[in-house]
Structure formats: structure tokens, C-alpha cells
């Protein structure tokens, strides 16, 4: 699986933290997104890089305390597909 993903440019995003979620305003689309975990963390670890879902899952595992009995990579893929449908993440050819 060589599909890579890249998050929208930080300059195009305005973040605002709420108690249990993150508001994200995307300047280029004019859409405000309400993000629940793990979506903000995924965007955070992407940091302008083109990464595979496995690499993102590894970053999350390194930076956060994640339950061990879950398939992090498949969850990351599902969230990346969700975010790419909203224009917050782009698929990049590997």
C-alpha cells in the first residue's frame, strides 16, 4: 500500500479547540469542520508531509497513548478517506 496523503496547508486552516472537539475553518472552501478524535491528531502528525496510513499510524502510536487491541492503520485509512472527501487531505501518488 503506497498511497500517500498530504494534509491541507496550515496557512489555509484556522484551528479552534473546544472541550471535546476541534473546530477547523478551511479558508479555501469556506467550510467549518467539527473534528472529533482521532481526526485532529491525524492532521497534526501529518505536518505538511506526504505520508502513508501506516506511517501516520506509527506517528500516532509514538506520540499518543492508543489502545493496543485495535487496528490503528485501518482506522487511520478510514479517517483519511473521510478527510479527503472534505478537502482537508489530498491523496498523493506514491
Amino acid at each position, binding site marked *: 500500500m503506497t498511497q500517500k496523503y498530504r494534509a491541507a496547508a496550515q496557512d489555509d486552516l484556522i484551528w479552534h479547540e473546544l472541550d471535546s472537539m476541534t473546530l477547523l475553518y478551511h479558508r*479555501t*472552501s469556506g467550510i467549518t469542520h*467539527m473534528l*472529533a478524535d*482521532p481526526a485532529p491528531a491525524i492532521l*497534526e502528525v501529518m505536518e505538511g508531509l506526504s505520508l502513508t496510513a501506516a506511517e501516520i499510524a506509527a506517528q500516532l502510536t509514538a506520540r499518543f*497513548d*492508543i489502545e493496543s487491541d485495535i487496528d490503528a492503520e485501518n482506522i487511520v485509512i478510514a479517517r483519511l478517506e473521510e478527510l479527503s472527501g472534505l478537502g482537508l487531505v489530498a491523496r498523493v501518488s506514491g
Partner: protein
Amino acid sequence: MNDDLPSGPSAESDLNKGIVTRRRALMMGAVTASAVVSIKPALAQTAGSVLNCEIPVPGNHASGGYIAADGKVVPSDTPGAYPPAGRNFTGEEVRRAMNGRSLPGTSRDQSEAYVNYIRRLQSGQSGFTCYASLQMPR
């Protein structure tokens, strides 16, 4: 409640960047559990507005400027830059151009330069709301 939070300045300084670093438990949820709800501006509701709205290249904020290949507005004597488009493009024409066709009356390279200009539009500039409408999901 927050007894697992680290003490130290890093979390606070990260706040200033607009991104809060979660250093402890991260709820991954399930594959099927959607994590995003989007709030679309009302302008997205009317499909007709997307087809018929217009985008000037360049807009009033850069009137008379030429368009470089990367979409930046440059002085008229800049080598390789394209003159202002002689007409406004409709949302539908821009949508097609973003899908690989050329804008009407332009060469392929010229069309790409114009589309790059449109992609750079910011809120408040002529054509921005039209371009934003094109980007609405579904």
C-alpha cells in the same frame, strides 16, 4: 481528572500555535465511526449559483495585472506571464478546467495559470465565493 497530564511549558506553547498537543490517551474510535461534521455556508445550497457565478481573472484587487504560470499576479512586462482574461469565467467553466479541460478561449498553459490564480483566491477577493462553492463536497 487531569492527573495524567504532563507538567511543563510545552502544552501551553503549543496552544499558541493553535494546535493543542494531546500527549496522552487518544480515542481512535472505530473504522466506521465518522469523526467530522461539516458546516457549509449557505452559499453552497444553490447548485445554480455554482454554475452561473463568475470569477474574474484577475479580480478588482489586482486589476490590470498579468498572471504568472503559478497563478501569482505579476507586472505586465513579466516574461511568460499571461494577460488578464478578456472575460469572466463561470463556475462551471472553472470546475471543468479543474478537472483537466482548458478554460474557454485559452491555451492549455494559459488555462493552468488562470486556474492556479483562482486556487489562490482568498476571502474578500472577487470570485472567491464562487470558487469556494465549487469546492463544497457533493
